[in-house]
């Protein structure tokens, strides 16, 4: 029993201990909680104070309302801004402080807001200051719960009066401006022909910059504002309609603005007639179309650029043969008229060189399928008279809304000249680098220039691709100068390129000068004007212009006379292209050509160097042997002085001969400027034969001369003519390499073609030439010899051409070929 009790007691004690521990723990938690709350309370208090300060200081009006719309609180700024004390507002309906005519709308907004208080309301209304002035406000409204769990409305209200005022002012001035603009564009007029009464809408006067009262409603006075040049035709047009000769009175003419500028007016009128058909009134409208006219003028000037440029604009239909739908007039440079192409008479495909057509078609197809917008090609075009022209074609692909290709639009630029120069330069570069290393730098420079030109052209091509509105940009940035003057020399238009080309800083500066009265061109201007009067245009005139700094400018000019209806010239329009660079390039090429002539000559001389050594050694041998013989004679016992004297005279002769050979040789090897002198062609031939004689002996070639006596003198460069004959002799000898040695005969013949012309022929008995090669044998770098560089015949021909003659070749009827040239006989003239 006792054990039982003991057991219970122990149990109770255990329980008490357990509870006590629990109580201690709870107490600790409570302590902690109290500390936390105090800290939170401190934070909250601080926050509230801060918030209060903000509430009163911020430049926004704060209101709290109950759901009835009664004001509960207002912040300090709100009271101050509206001019009230707190007690005057608190407890009052908020609607009271709104502008009378807004009150109904305010209530509606407020009630709508309360129906769906989850969203934030925002509205603009007018409030009234205590002193009565109106304040525009923008209110942001939000529903909240207060500490008593009641719904309250918080309104944040911003003064937007100033903003409203500015907006309104802006709106008004904009409307006024538009109205004014509208008014100034068109106006009506009414002319009673019976009473002479004339009504003129103030709008029309406004077009010219006048107020209504500044111009009286009088037809006579009104017509004085018409541009003097247009007055007559305007009146005639009106008269024609009044008399019933035209269905409507329509005319575009110029009028004079108050500020001195010219405005374009489109007039449209209709006559009102009585029963007999007499016109009693004429009424209609005047519309200001100056802007349109200006746009048209810009377009016309842009067209001028296009028509004068090497770039032809095309629009082709994307069907077989590419029929032309649109083409610029300057397609005439390929010999075709725009009419021929537009009528479908000639398809574009037939213009393309047959060898290029397949490639062009293939490329067009390739690009069309690839989805690109534009592409570029170079190919050849055959002009109407059969000449070949290289063109650069930049094509834009036009697609309809379904993505189907409907048209191609493109610019085709004649780049033949560029191609030729490129080709020529290419050839020079490839083959001459080794021979004329020191010229490489110059060639590179020339090439650079060319590249720059190409870059410029590429640029203009791109610019052309752009739409009409960019034409003006083209006018200003064109690489050619464009101008328009009056016949008495006033400069009306000049693009920046021309201004810069002539060395002026601005168009205005240039326009102060007179193109006719001051010295702008190097030629006689009156003659030029006479030609222009006669032909209407002068195309491709190469001339020189004078810059502001007095320097000369090499240019190509195109000029057109613009006439009025009566055929009187009113303007000159023209383009001026600076070709100074091009000229320099040509000069470089000329220099290279001369270099080439020299190099080729020296090369040929190298081939006969053995022969030349022989030619010099002969007299030297004779001299040495003679002198040594003389010494031996003099050393003898009875010297024969007559013999010695004879020897010495022979020595002198041989010495002269040696000197002569060396002098001529030096002349042939020297690089000299071309020097025209009267020459006896027979002597020239004999001299060159003396050089090659020994070489010909070695080659077993017999030279036979048939030189006609009393041949007229030719005017030429001895060295260069000898070079030609030397080339022909060497070629002839070469052609006979496979001929039986005993048969190798070269006949050099001179003839009097007639009194004015001398013919020189070199005839061989060799293999003759293949008929196919005749087309190419005068081309540079064309050769049939394994070691030849192929310059000989090309240079020979160019030399003869410089001498105003011609060089030709033909096969002999039996064996071999004959090369012959004709040079005009000439007297020495200073050129």
């Amino acid at each position: 029993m006792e054990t039982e009790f003991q057991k219970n007691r122990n149990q109770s004690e255990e329980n008490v201990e357990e509870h006590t521990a629990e109580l201690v723990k709870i107490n600790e938690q409570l302590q902690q909680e109290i500390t936390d709350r105090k800290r939170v309370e401190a934070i909250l208090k601080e926050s509230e104070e801060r918030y209060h300060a903000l509430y009163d200081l911020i430049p926004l009006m704060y209101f709290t309302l109950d759901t009835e719309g009664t004001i509960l609180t207002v912040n300090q700024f709100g009271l101050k801004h509206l001019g009230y004390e707190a007690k005057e507002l608190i407890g009052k309906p908020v609607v009271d402080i709104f502008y009378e005519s807004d009150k109904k709308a305010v209530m509606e907004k407020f009630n709508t807001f309360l129906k769906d208080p989850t969203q934030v309301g925002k509205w603009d209304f007018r409030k009234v200051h205590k002193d009565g002035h109106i304040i525009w406000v923008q209110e942001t409204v939000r529903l909240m719960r207060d500490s008593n769990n009641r719904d309250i409305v918080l309104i944040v209200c911003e003064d937007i009066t100033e903003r409203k005022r500015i907006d309104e002012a802006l709106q008004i001035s904009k409307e006024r401006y538009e109205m004014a603009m509208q008014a100034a564009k068109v106006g009506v007029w009414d002319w009673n022909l019976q009473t002479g009464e004339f009504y003129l809408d103030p709008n029309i006067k406004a077009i010219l910059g006048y107020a209504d009262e500044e111009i009286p409603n009088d037809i006579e006075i009104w017509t004085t504002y018409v541009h003097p040049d247009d007055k007559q035709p305007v009146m005639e047009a009106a008269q024609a309609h009044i008399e019933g000769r035209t269905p409507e009175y329509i005319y575009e003419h110029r009028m004079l603005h108050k500020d001195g500028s010219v405005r374009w007016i489109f007039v449209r009128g209709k006559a009102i007639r009585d029963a007999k058909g007499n016109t009693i009134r004429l009424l209609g409208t005047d519309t200001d179309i100056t802007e349109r006219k200006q746009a048209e003028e810009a377009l016309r000037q842009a067209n001028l650029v296009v028509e004068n440029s090497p770039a032809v604009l095309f629009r082709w239909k994307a069907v077989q043969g590419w029929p032309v739908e649109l083409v610029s007039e300057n397609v005439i440079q390929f010999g075709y008229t725009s009419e021929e192409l537009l009528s479908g008479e000639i398809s574009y495909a037939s213009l393309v060189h047959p060898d290029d057509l397949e490639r062009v078609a293939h490329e067009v197809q390739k690009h069309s399928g690839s989805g690109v917008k534009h592409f570029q090609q170079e190919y050849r075009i055959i002009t109407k008279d059969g000449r070949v022209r290289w063109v650069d074609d930049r094509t834009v692909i036009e697609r309809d809304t379904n993505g189907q290709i409907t048209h191609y639009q493109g610019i085709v630029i004649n780049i033949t000249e560029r191609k030729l120069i490129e080709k020529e330069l290419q050839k020079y570069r490839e083959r001459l680098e080794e021979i004329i290393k020191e010229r490489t730098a110059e060639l590179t420079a020339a090439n650079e220039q060319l590249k720059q030109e190409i870059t410029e052209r590429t640029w203009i091509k791109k610019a052309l691709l752009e739409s009409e509105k960019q034409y003006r940009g083209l006018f200003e940035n064109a690489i050619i100068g464009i101008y328009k003057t009056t016949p008495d020399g006033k400069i009306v238009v000049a693009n920046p390129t021309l201004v810069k080309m002539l060395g002026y800083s601005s168009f205005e500066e240039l326009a102060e000068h007179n193109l006719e009265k001051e010295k702008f061109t190097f030629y006689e201007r009156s003659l030029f004007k006479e030609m222009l009067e006669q032909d209407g245009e002068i195309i491709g005139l190469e001339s020189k212009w004078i810059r502001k700094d007095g320097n000369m400018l090499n240019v190509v000019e195109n000029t057109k006379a613009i006439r009025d209806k009566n055929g009187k010239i009113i303007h000159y329009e023209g383009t001026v292209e600076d070709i100074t660079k091009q000229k320099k390039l040509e000069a470089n090429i000329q220099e290279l050509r001369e270099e080439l002539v020299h190099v080729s000559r020296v090369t040929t001389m190298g081939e006969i160097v053995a022969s030349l050594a022989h030619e010099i050694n002969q007299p030297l041998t004779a001299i040495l042997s003679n002198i040594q013989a003389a010494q031996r004679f003099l050393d003898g016992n009875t010297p024969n002085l007559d013999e010695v004297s004879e020897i010495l005279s022979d020595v002198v002769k041989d010495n002269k001969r040696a000197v002569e050979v060396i002098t001529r040789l030096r002349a042939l090897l020297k690089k000299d400027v071309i020097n025209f002198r009267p020459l006896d062609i027979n002597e020239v031939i004999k001299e060159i034969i003396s050089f090659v004689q020994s070489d010909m002996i070695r080659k077993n070639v017999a030279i036979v001369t048939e030189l006609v006596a009393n041949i007229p003198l030719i005017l030429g460069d001895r060295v260069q003519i000898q070079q030609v004959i030397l080339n022909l002799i060497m070629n002839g000898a070469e052609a006979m390499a496979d001929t039986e040695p005993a048969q190798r005969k070269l006949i050099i013949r001179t003839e009097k073609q007639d009194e004015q012309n001398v013919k020189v022929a070199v005839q061989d008995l060799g293999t003759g030439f293949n008929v196919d090669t005749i087309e190419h044998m005068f081309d540079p770098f064309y050769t049939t010899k394994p070691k030849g560089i192929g310059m000989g015949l090309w240079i020979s021909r160019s030399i003869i051409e410089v001498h105003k003659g011609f060089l030709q070749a033909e096969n002999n009827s039996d064996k071999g070929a004959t090369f012959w040239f004709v040079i005009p006989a000439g007297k020495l003239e200073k050129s």
Partner: protein
Amino acid sequence: MSELTPIIYIVDDNTSVRKSLERLITSMDFHVETFTSAQEFLRFNRPDIPCCLVLDIRMPGISGLALQEELAIANYTIPIIFITGHGDISMSVRAMKKGAVDFLTKPFDDQDLLDAIHKAVEQDKSTRQEQSEISEIQKSVDSLTSREREVFALVVTGMLNKQIAYTLKISEKTVKVHRARAMQKMHAKSFAHLVRMADKVGIEK
């Protein structure tokens, strides 16, 4: 001048060179004959006097080298000194291979020419000496009877009398007689001398 003064032939198409060479060689105490072309030289009837040929290599018509070949074909031995305006190595090699004495490049020194001429004339003289010796021997050979010639031909091969007798099917005594006669007719001083002479004229069996 004695009859033995050598003649120098000059062939050159260039007049002033030809004339100056004529003077120079004359001044060296030679006889000189000049020709303007190879054809002219070939037509010339040359006397039997020591000589040499100064020949320009490059001439129209028959060139110097062609003339050299032609003379070789005609079995006419004459020492040739070539002169040329330009030192063409392949040409000079060709000329020297065919027996030219010298090859002079214009212009040349008189001493070089003189040396070359002396060398050429000496060569011609010894050739002529040889030629006359051979014709003397040939005369002796021609004086032999046919049997003497047969024995002579076998003797110089080094055969013994006994062998010769057997070969010719005659008695040894007869061989001895023919041998003694041949030695006498050939003016042979010794057996060795006889063999040398046989070598020069090319005696065969």
